[in-house]
């Protein structure tokens, strides 16, 4: 079986480290934060462009009296509000709200407190891939913290098809975008170096390419006569060996 290489060195089935804290917000009836990824030092954040973790904060208020107009008053109602990190609320946020609402409705015991509304507010703190799954996990932890009666826990994991058709778990934002064929315009970690009189440009997500330094035209991929198929490290250093 072929192993594919991921940018951060994980195997295809490996998840990023998970972290969860509960009872963070004292006014809310229940709250939890869930993060997937390594939030290492500030240096990592700076040199790698986007921090390597997805973090979501969820708060639960409820049950409150009364249901909305189109909802069934014989059962409890769950309302989800999704707050993105930046920008206005658009179709993507509405889709996430609907998916999260249906998921939470299927795990809550809705007949215990009829004619009530429980509000779940999800705030995106940082997005580096697998955002909806992080939100589902955070919302479930917040419901547990609030003491809302639920049948069982909801667990979510994100799968992605890599470019060559292999399934990888817990993709980062870069891996998600490469699948859809969108070029990451905010590419960081690029470099140009010289070797044996020729010039090469390297980036973190693709194989090195030979370039013409005067016209800056790309002359083709450089795979060291077929021996090298991966991206290079983007900060090569020349060692000056003295014998």
């Amino acid at each position, binding site marked *: 079986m072929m192993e594919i290489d991921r940018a951060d060195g994980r195997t295809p089935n490996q998840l990023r480290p998970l972290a969860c804290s509960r009872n963070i917000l004292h006014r809310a009836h229940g709250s939890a934060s869930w993060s997937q990824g390594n939030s290492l030092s500030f240096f990592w954040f700076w040199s790698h462009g986007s921090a390597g973790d997805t973090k979501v904060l969820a708060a639960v208020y409820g049950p409150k009296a009364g249901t909305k107009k189109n909802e*069934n008053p014989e*059962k409890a109602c769950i309302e989800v509000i999704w707050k993105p990190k930046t920008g206005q609320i658009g179709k*993507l946020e*509405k*889709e996430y709200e609907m998916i999260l609402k249906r998921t939470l409705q299927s795990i809550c015991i809705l*007949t215990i407190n009829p004619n009530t509304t429980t509000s779940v507010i999800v705030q995106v703190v940082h997005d580096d891939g697998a955002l909806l799954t992080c939100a589902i996990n955070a919302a479930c932890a917040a419901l547990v913290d609030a003491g809302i009666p639920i049948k069982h826990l909801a667990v979510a994991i994100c799968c992605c098809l890599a470019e060559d058709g292999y399934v990888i778990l817990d993709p980062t934002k870069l891996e998600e975008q490469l699948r859809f064929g969108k070029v990451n315009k905010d590419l960081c970690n690029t470099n140009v170096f010289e070797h044996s009189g020729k010039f090469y440009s390297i980036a973190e997500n693709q194989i090195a390419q030979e370039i013409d330094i005067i016209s800056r035209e790309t002359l083709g991929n450089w795979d060291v006569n077929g021996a090298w198929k991966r991206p290079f490290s983007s900060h090569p250093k020349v060692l000056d060996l003295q014998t």
Partner: protein
Amino acid sequence: MGLPNVSGDLSAEMEVDAFRRLFPLRFYERHLSESIRPDARPLGRARDTTLALGAVASADGSALAKIGSTTMLAAIKMEVMSPSTDSPDEGCIAIDFHMPPICSPIVRPGRPVEAAPVVSKQLSDTILSSGMINLKELSLVSGKAAWMAYLDIYCLDADGALFDAALLSAVAAFSHLQIPIVFLNDDGKIVVVSEEGEGGKLDKEPVNKEKRKLTLRSLPFSLTCILHKNYILADPTAEEESIMELL
């Protein structure tokens, strides 16, 4: 579950329609235990589907799709625009899904439906990621002019399985689409030739000689299913969707 067992006493005396309104879940479960649904479909069968191309004469491409009672009207209008700098030889597609109040009694004017932006986003994700349309085919003059296709889908009757019908009508509209003929003006602008015919004014060179259709590579298709206890129902109606969702 939490409901009192009133229906047990009255089911023998009540009319079917009343029982359907008062105890919908029991009504459906009586049918599901016999592996049939109230409209006599087996659990895995979809409703009758019809498709009509060219429903909107003024649009460049259009289609009307009906799955059972769910009706969707899709229409495409093409407009010339200048492409973005990072993809100078690619056109663009904008997809929008509308649910006007005509489609359902629960949709009221002024209050947008929850489902509409969700279906709209799912549609544009599906169509753009399926690779059905090669955006390079929508290019006219590289770097200067490209086609922008506005696809609008109107739901005329919402009776369940909205996404399936919408996707079907969108794909059909793209298959019916004919790209209009354009001329390159002296000012360097693209002019769309109108249908009334411009007789002998053929001193300008047309950019594309004849109306052409897009080549569609892989056609996306979808089927909505509902999971209720241990039954899987294919192509649910609106009544089934609203009842089973409350499980």
